[in-house]
């Protein structure tokens, strides 16, 4: 009897693996059973044996036993029995290696075991079928399983045969394959046309395992598919929908969760089926109740809730009224040992607080803020991301931003540390939160500066990843919004004018846009602010002009023109410099970009362009006559005259204001 032997002692496990290749069938069978019993339930042993190459060895046993015809050579009854045992045990061992262990799944697939396992499904022996079906099911529960091509006719036939089987394990396998591989709407449609969903609806009324597996598969077929979903739901006057709703109050928590998940998919795809039956409200209550489950179901319930209320203000309100925030914060406070659950709770809180101030206030009242900011330092990457997203939601609270709630070291320091995080998604999530927090209205931005925030953001603005670049520029833009000179000077000195100029000409348009917006905020205000555009020989101003000449996207034009209009609100020298930018770029035959923008369909772009003209032609500043003349010669005034009845009110009023300013300088006959 094998006693508890140390797996570290060399020889024993390796010895077992080599026995799998023994010429004697009996010895192979014994080795298989020993291996199987050692690895089942024991992740550590699975990994150890994987390293020793156990999977290819077991796969070889399976292939060998499958190859033998029934009753070979000596026609001995025990031989056939032994072959059956070898099939069952090797399949079970492979299934166990694949159970919850991604490396194991890969090893089984790489060892070419899948075709052999599939063959077991047509065996006359029920135990062999069971064994094969269970193992394949384990494999298909992993993302690493090979994709099943539903668009292939033979594959579809095979799948249907699985679903039609009387064997629980086999139907479960069919359902697992669908859940795993059904992704595109073409596949969903193919499955619908083949009558798969009818089978699944029937199976929902079957045993517990069939029911759970079918609910999951139905969700996969329904997800985001606007054509298939209504058909499924209208089937037999809504029998399917009623059945799923019934199971949201089943005894088994897992069934309730899966039924809820299915209904969430329905509600996201075609909300008309859930309107009027108050289904979404019931779903919220069910999910909040499922949160109480201590196991995996409870973990997943928070993700389901999160998905249900995402972007939906009315549902967030319903959840608030159902006391969701109290319940979520309660779980947050209870020292969760499971990282998955913590991530789910944070994500749910992030979503519920994303639009409504009442939700944010409630969370802050419950003193849960510290728990959220503590999670910024968690070991698990996903949790750090979730905590940042939650903070971003909370920092949308204008009331608390104004009170300076977030601009303190307990929040800023861990957030800034995350800007160095090895994971890009953490960096981006942290940037999201920072972008909101720096819009601090109490003018306590010095806190942020002292913690080295500006330096870090400036560094990130030169990151390899373009999304990181644009997000960090956005944060800097928000920081400089209505900021004092001291703050602006720090920003400019950290980022440097030449770097900013190159970011204005960045290959990615999102980066260009944020860079221009940052300049817009920097130069906004007094004459000294406008001067920032002229540092290092006007490199920034020049970059703006160049970029606008080639700008194709309206957003770039808008930010650039507002930046120019801020600069044009300065002194004569500054206004003249803007004039130069308007006309010096482009060749002889190219239209000045301002003309192009005035012709744009985008209201905001036309508005921004007029603002530049208003500021350039204002009579309080010397040199206005010269500027107006130049504009007239370029046909701009004529263009403005054609816009006096522009459909956009902002544009119309500004055009008229500009024209009335220009009138002072004489008007050649129109």
């Amino acid at each position, binding site marked *: *009897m094998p*006693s*508890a*032997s*140390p*797996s570290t002692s060399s020889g024993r496990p390796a010895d077992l693996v080599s026995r799998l290749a023994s010429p004697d069938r009996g010895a192979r069978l014994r080795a298989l*059973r020993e291996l*199987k*019993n050692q690895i*089942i*339930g*024991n*992740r*550590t042993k699975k990994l150890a044996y994987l390293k020793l190459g156990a999977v290819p060895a077991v796969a070889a046993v399976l292939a060998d036993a499958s190859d033998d015809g029934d009753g070979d050579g000596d026609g001995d009854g025990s031989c056939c029995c032994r072959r059956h045992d070898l099939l069952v045990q090797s399949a*079970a061992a492979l*299934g*166990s290696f694949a*159970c*919850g262990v991604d490396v194991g799944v890969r090893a089984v697939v790489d060892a070419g075991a899948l075709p052999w396992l599939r063959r077991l499904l047509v065996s006359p022996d029920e135990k062999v079928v069971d*064994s094969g079906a*269970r193992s394949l099911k*384990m494999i298909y529960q992993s993302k690493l399983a090979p994709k099943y091509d539903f668009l292939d006719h033979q594959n579809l036939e095979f799948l249907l045969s699985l679903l039609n089987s009387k064997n*629980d394990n086999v139907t479960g396998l069919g359902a697992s394959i669908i859940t795993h591989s059904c992704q595109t709407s073409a596949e969903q449609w193919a499955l619908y046309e083949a009558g798969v969903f009818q089978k699944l609806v029937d199976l929902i009324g079957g*045993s*517990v*395992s*069939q029911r759970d597996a079918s609910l999951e598969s139905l969700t996969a077929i329904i997800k985001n598919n606007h054509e298939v979903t209504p058909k499924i739901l209208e089937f037999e006057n809504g029998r399917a929908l009623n059945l799923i709703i019934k199971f949201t109050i089943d005894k088994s928590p897992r069934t309730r969760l899966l039924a809820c998940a299915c209904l969430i998919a329905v509600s996201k795809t075609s909300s008309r089926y859930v309107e009027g039956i108050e289904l979404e409200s019931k779903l919220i209550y069910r999910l909040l109740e499922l949160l109480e489950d201590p196991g995996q179901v409870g973990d997943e319930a928070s993700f389901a809730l999160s998905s249900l209320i995402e972007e939906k203000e009315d549902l967030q309100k319903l959840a608030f009224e159902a006391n969701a925030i109290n319940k979520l914060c309660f779980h947050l406070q209870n020292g969760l*040992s*499971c990282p998955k659950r913590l991530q789910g709770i944070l994500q749910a809180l992030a979503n519920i607080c994303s639009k409504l101030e009442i939700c944010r206030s409630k969370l802050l009242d419950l003193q849960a803020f510290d728990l959220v900011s503590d999670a910024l330092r968690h070991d698990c990457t996903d949790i750090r991301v979730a905590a940042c997203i939650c903070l971003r939601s909370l920092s949308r609270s204008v009331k608390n931003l104004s009170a300076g709630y977030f601009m303190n070291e307990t929040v800023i320091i861990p957030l800034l540390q995350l800007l160095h995080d090895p994971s890009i998604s953490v960096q981006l999530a942290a940037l999201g939160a920072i972008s909101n927090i720096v819009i601090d209205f109490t003018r306590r931005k010095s806190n942020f500066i002292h913690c080295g925030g500006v330096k870090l953001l400036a560094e990130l603005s030169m990151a390899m990843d373009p999304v990181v670049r644009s997000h960090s520029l956005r944060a800097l833009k928000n920081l400089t919004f209505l900021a004092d000179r001291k703050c602006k000077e720090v920003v400019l000195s950290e980022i440097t004018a030449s770097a900013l100029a190159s970011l204005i000409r960045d290959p990615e348009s999102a980066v260009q846009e944020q860079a221009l917006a940052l300049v817009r905020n920097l130069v906004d205000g007094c004459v000294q602010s406008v001067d920032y555009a002229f540092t290092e020989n006007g490199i920034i101003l020049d970059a703006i002009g160049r970029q606008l000449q080639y700008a194709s996207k309206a957003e770039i034009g808008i930010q650039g023109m507002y930046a120019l209009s801020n600069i044009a609100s300065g002194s004569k020298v500054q206004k003249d410099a803007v004039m130069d930018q308007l006309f010096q770029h482009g060749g002889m035959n190219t239209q000045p970009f301002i003309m192009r923008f005035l012709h744009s369909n985008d209201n905001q772009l036309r508005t921004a362009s007029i603002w530049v003209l208003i500021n350039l032609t204002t009579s309080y500043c010397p040199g206005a006559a010269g500027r107006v003349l130049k504009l007239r010669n370029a046909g701009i005034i004529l263009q403005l005259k054609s816009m006096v009845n522009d459909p956009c009110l902002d544009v119309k009023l500004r055009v008229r204001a500009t024209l009335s300013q220009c009138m002072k300088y004489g008007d050649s006959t129109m």
Partner: protein
Amino acid sequence: MAQVTFLVKLIMRGSSKKVITKEDWEKRLNDVKIRKEDMNKLVMNFLVTEGFVDAAEKFRKESGTEPDIDLSTITDRMAVKKAVQCGNVEDAIEKVNDLNPEILDTNPQLFFHLQQQRLIELIRNGKVEEALEFAQEELAPRGEENQSFLEELERTVALLAFEDVSNCPVGDLLDMSQRLKTASEVNAAILTSQSHEKDPKLPSLLKMLVWAQNQLDEKAIYPRIKDLSTAKLEDPSAS
């Protein structure tokens, strides 16, 4: 069962506290019809869930009631339960894996409890060195894989620290009740894997009776069943 149906009917009527004589009560009870088939099913369900194979087989022959589960699977399940109850945990594990290899792979808590029981048996048999090795090789990784097991792990390992194990704070782990607890857990897991309810229906029915009587106590004085095992109707006494 008639008592339950009758009680529920009375409660629904919502009368003020009235007295019902035993004679009157028994007469009304007789009027309530319970189908024999339903009772047979309840009995069969009880025998099957609890694992009384021979009794279930005999009952099927004598009453013609079909069990809702294949009786041969009961034998396998009972073998596992018995092995645990006798302290042969390793044997039990092998049997469960033969029955359905998914069970222990998808039930980390159950697997941990079985390993824990193995350790307890080693300690009970005085095999201290082997126990230490086992704890290190088999149980410690479980604690690493899943933090929620750590507390129980510590308790179990604490057994090793005491000379007189029967008198130590964690001595309850050596009780027969611990074996029975583990055996019951395994039994439930096997039943669940076979898509069968892990609890028999009969206890639920009795619980319903107790609840209904408690409800009715507020409205009437009537012959109660105090002893569930005899189901004897007590004389109604004015309170």
